[in-house]
């Protein structure tokens, strides 16, 4: 239960970190919060030759909240992001989702960007990023680029990040005042990875769902957008039970959930409809 030997480097700038990644590529692993990487090292699921610890890069600690939205640098911890978002908008999707990410001691170290870069399909934040149309900012030898969350997540622990790129931040656009958020998950114990979860938002005008986004996690290799269920709800009144039923049926039809080691596909699809009902309930509640 000890990591295999590695070389440890702690660059002071993004440029220096990117240069190390460009030089060593797949041989290097980036250490940010370490709350997933350290267990993987201890279990020897991975054994990088070089650990690039970015915790000394002060520029990556920045977070900003303004009219455009939220920006979190690569070193912004879950706990600090949660405090900032709650202060700005207690009903926001991130304010609802972050308490479900592991436990406080882990949220003190773990980072928003690290959760995104890892791309665990059962994790909350990748689904939130897709739901919120967040943009992930990457720095590489050729400069910086931004990718939408939808384009960033490719598959199981797989993203569009190239081996010579560093995730330096995530940008979450501010949504209009008519936006309502919903978040829930089913887990055996608070803080565990969810069996299944749902991150959602709706644009509600005069009691009518003008548009909505439903993103499941734990349902596939990457965050799964329930497009048919979204279509079933679009244009419906918020309290239209028939539309809710059509959306639930659509979810059952469109989610191709694989059974995991503990839970069968039928059970997980039933969870998917139960979560949808709870989320619509959250949309109805005053926010």
């Amino acid at each position, binding site marked *: *239960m*000890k*990591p*295999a*030997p*590695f*070389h*440890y*480097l*702690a660059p002071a700038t993004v440029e220096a970190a990117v240069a190390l990644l460009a030089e060593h590529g797949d*041989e290097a692993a980036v*250490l940010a919060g*370490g*709350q997933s990487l*350290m*267990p993987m090292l*201890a*279990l020897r699921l991975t054994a990088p*030759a*070089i*650990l690039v*610890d970015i*915790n000394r890069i002060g520029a990556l600690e920045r977070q900003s909240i303004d009219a455009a939205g939220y920006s979190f640098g690569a070193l912004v911890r879950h*706990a600090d992001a949660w405090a900032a978002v709650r202060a700005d908008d207690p009903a926001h999707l991130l304010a609802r989702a972050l308490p479900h990410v*592991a*436990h*406080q*001691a*882990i949220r*003190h*170290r773990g980072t928003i960007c690290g959760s995104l870069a890892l791309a665990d399909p059962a994790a909350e934040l990748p689904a939130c990023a897709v739901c919120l149309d967040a943009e992930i900012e990457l720095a590489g030898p050729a400069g910086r680029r931004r990718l939408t969350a939808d384009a960033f997540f490719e598959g199981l622990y797989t993203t569009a990040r190239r081996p010579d790129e560093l995730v330096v931040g995530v940008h979450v656009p501010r949504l209009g005042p008519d936006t309502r958020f919903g978040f829930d998950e089913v887990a055996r*114990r*608070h*803080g565990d990875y969810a069996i299944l979860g749902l991150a959602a938002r709706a644009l509600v005008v005069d009691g009518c769902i003008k548009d909505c986004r439903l993103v499941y996690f734990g349902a596939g290799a990457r965050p799964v957008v329930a497009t048919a269920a979204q279509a079933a709800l679009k244009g419906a009144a918020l309290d239209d039970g028939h539309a809710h039923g059509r959306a639930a049926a659509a979810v059952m039809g469109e989610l191709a959930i694989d059974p995991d080691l503990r839970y069968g596909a039928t059970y997980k699809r039933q969870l998917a409809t139960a979560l949808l009902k709870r989320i619509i309930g959250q949309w109805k509640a005053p926010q």
Partner: protein
Amino acid sequence: MSDLGLETTATLACTVNGEPVRAIVPVRQSLVDWLRHGLGLTGSHVGCEHGVCGACTILVDGRTVRGCLMLAMQVDGLAVETIEGATASGRVVALQAAFRERAALQCGFCTPGMVLTAAELLASEPRPSRARIREAISGNYCRCTGYQAIVDAVAAAGGND
């Protein structure tokens, strides 16, 4: 990769329980292993070594962390507090008394992590509900008590008997 000519040990300077410490540590040594084997502070326990059990809970710059999920090297320049320091300062005395009173420990392996985690909860929420206490200690395993007595003790120390 030995042709990189990089060191496998590094020098570290931090404070531990208020005392300045300088040490040479293996770069792959975890923080909790260094505290136990390097400094003899064996109050922080090593359970699962992959961040699941909470027995190694310590404070870095005033916030709880998993001692097994940080490298010792990473506390260079930071302030570390262990259960030994928290005990000596007296800041967890009420919790420790409540744990004794309510028999909230049997083997004691989880207790240092439980106490530090509970102290952090009570510092931010003086009278937490039992549900909130359960949520706060959900990252700390106890294999003896069944948790009821621990929740009792934390509620009592929080004045929510």
